[in-house]
């Protein structure tokens, strides 16, 4: 699947601005961005539920801009799961197959039984649904209605409905955001396993960078309707292309030092640049390059997050090891920056300046 210079306008407002996206066969791509950045619109354009105002949508090299989601044979899992409440789990999963294998007459409740070939199609549907349900652990609940299921089960039914069609592309729109934290981590692993098993490309929309980093082999960061950066999780973490990407990626938000904040550090080659240092690359050390006053201490077990303030009033976050004995707040401590882990950005455009880092 490939989007070429796709633009989408709603009335006057530009939601997508010349977006280029390439999704490789068998890849797991995460579309990452804050709400309203156009990631869901991108997904809808991929699915065929929405049409681009401009640009091309290619699926396996063929322009599919005019084809519906069904004709493209893409599957979509919605944030709300979008299960049909009046149908049982079995019927929910079977519906895409019913539409494919049975004619208009064959779908009628009673008359349908009499249509030639429908009995065979029904057998095929039944066995496919049962196999899919079994692989997702849903065999027990096939006759129940979605309302009586737990969040995780609903999620699996929605996946089952996508899987059963054997689509060329899976599109997932924040599928885990309605689950509680523990279940989310488990479903994450299940999704990755599912991706391995099906060997089909997955496109996964999320606003949670941890989810994207954990699951995807390609992350596309979208900011204000534009692709800010596309690359592997490691690429994005090690070499963020802009300040915005740098602040989006990473569990703890990055520290930016402007020239007026003091500490010039590695800015020798570009005196006016903004340098970014991740909290995990900023640790207390007796031989540190600069000092700051300790304000808050968050002990997390494996690590300790320190909130600090420099003499010029700049707020910082640093991470110390879990066994770090924090002094009382207010004390000045020395901080050391891991070498080669400083990112330099142009202060005006926010673009990455040079090849610092790994």
């Amino acid at each position, binding site marked *: 699947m490939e989007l070429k210079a796709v633009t989408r306008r709603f009335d006057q407002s530009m939601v997508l601005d010349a977006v280029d996206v390439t999704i490789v066969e068998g890849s797991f791509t995460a579309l990452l961005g804050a709400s309203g950045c156009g990631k869901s619109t991108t997904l809808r354009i991929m699915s065929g539920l929405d049409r681009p105002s401009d640009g091309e949508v290619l699926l396996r090299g063929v322009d599919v801009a005019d084809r519906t989601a069904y004709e493209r044979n893409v599957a979509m899992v919605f944030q709300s799961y*979008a299960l049909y409440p009046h149908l049982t789990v079995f019927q929910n999963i079977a519906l895409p197959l019913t539409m494919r294998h049975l004619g208009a007459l064959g779908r009628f409740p009673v008359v349908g039984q009499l249509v030639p070939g429908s009995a065979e199609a029904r057998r095929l549907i039944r066995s496919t649904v049962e196999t899919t349900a079994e692989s997702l652990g849903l065999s027990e609940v096939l006759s129940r209605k979605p309302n009586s299921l737990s969040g995780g089960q609903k999620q699996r039914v929605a996946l089952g409905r996508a899987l059963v069609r054997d689509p060329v592309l899976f599109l997932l729109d924040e599928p885990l955001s309605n689950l509680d934290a523990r279940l989310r981590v488990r479903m994450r692993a299940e999704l990755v396993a599912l991706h391995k098993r099906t060997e089909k490309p997955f496109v996964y929309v999320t606003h949670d960078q941890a989810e994207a980093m954990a699951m995807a082999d390609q992350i596309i960061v979208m900011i204000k309707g534009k692709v800010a950066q596309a690359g592997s999780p490691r690429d994005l973490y090690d070499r963020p292309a802009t300040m915005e990407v740098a602040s989006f990626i990473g569990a703890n938000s990055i520290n930016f030092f402007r020239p007026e904040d003091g500490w010039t550090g590695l800015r020798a080659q570009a005196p006016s640049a903004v340098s970014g240092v991740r909290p995990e690359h900023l640790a207390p050390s007796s031989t540190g390059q600069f000092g700051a006053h300790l304000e808050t201490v968050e002990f997390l077990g494996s690590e300790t997050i320190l909130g600090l303030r420099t003499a010029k009033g700049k707020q910082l976050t640093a991470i110390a090891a879990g066994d770090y004995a924090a002094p009382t707040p207010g004390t000045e401590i020395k901080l050391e920056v891991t070498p080669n882990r400083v990112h330099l950005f142009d202060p005006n455009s926010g673009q990455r300046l040079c090849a610092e880092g790994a």
Partner: protein
Amino acid sequence: MTASRALGRLASLALLLLGAFAILLPFIWMLSLSVKPQDEIFSATFQLIPSRLEWQNYVKALTETDVPRYLLNGVIVTAGILFFQILFAVPCAFALTHRTFKGRTALFGLILAALLVPFHVTAIPVFLGFAQIGILNSYWALILPFVPTAFGIFLFRQFLSQIPADLFDAARVDGLSETAIVWRIAFPLAMPAATAFAIFSVTAHWNDLFWPLIATTDPDLATPPRGILFFRDEESGDDVGPLMAAATLITAPLVIAFLLAQRKFTQGLATGGLKG
């Protein structure tokens, strides 16, 4: 404390009973007359319970008069109206909520405006039009004027607008056509609204006397209320027992249907956004 509360409850109960009695009295009287022997009906003393049950009134109403015919006509006309109303109102409501097209808001505004126009305003033009194309005195004349229903579209629209759009998008991805989405997804979900609407529609058209009186003269096409009129004219008022039996037979289906669907009815109204 408890005594005064019991007293208050007693007072409200008494008031309710009084109100219910006032409303039910004509029906009780109708029921009573329908099972009274001929000689007791015109007796000078007031007696609610007949001395013996005279089932002959019902037999007479059902066998010697056209009441069964009227009931059948009532079923054909109300079922026909309801069928076509739903056939058109549900797709309209779906289009108004879950499809985007130019002038959608304006169109909905027009439908709201149409809610304000009583049927009596359009009755004469419709009558003249039907006379022109020559379909007066037919079932179609009784059914067609009520097929476009602003109220139905409004009710279904309010209901469907609460259903998340994701559900219909999912159905599109699953390969359902827009028509299939309407009938396989939207309509089953809108069942409570459909039940409420069905009760409104059936009650209104089962009891309607105005339009059948204008559009039909053929006794064979008479709906129940129109039939009662024929009946009364023929019998010139002296055969009250069978007349009341016929009236009971005509009222009963609605009362029974309402009792059966009562819960769904209130539920449909509440979720249809019509409460308050």
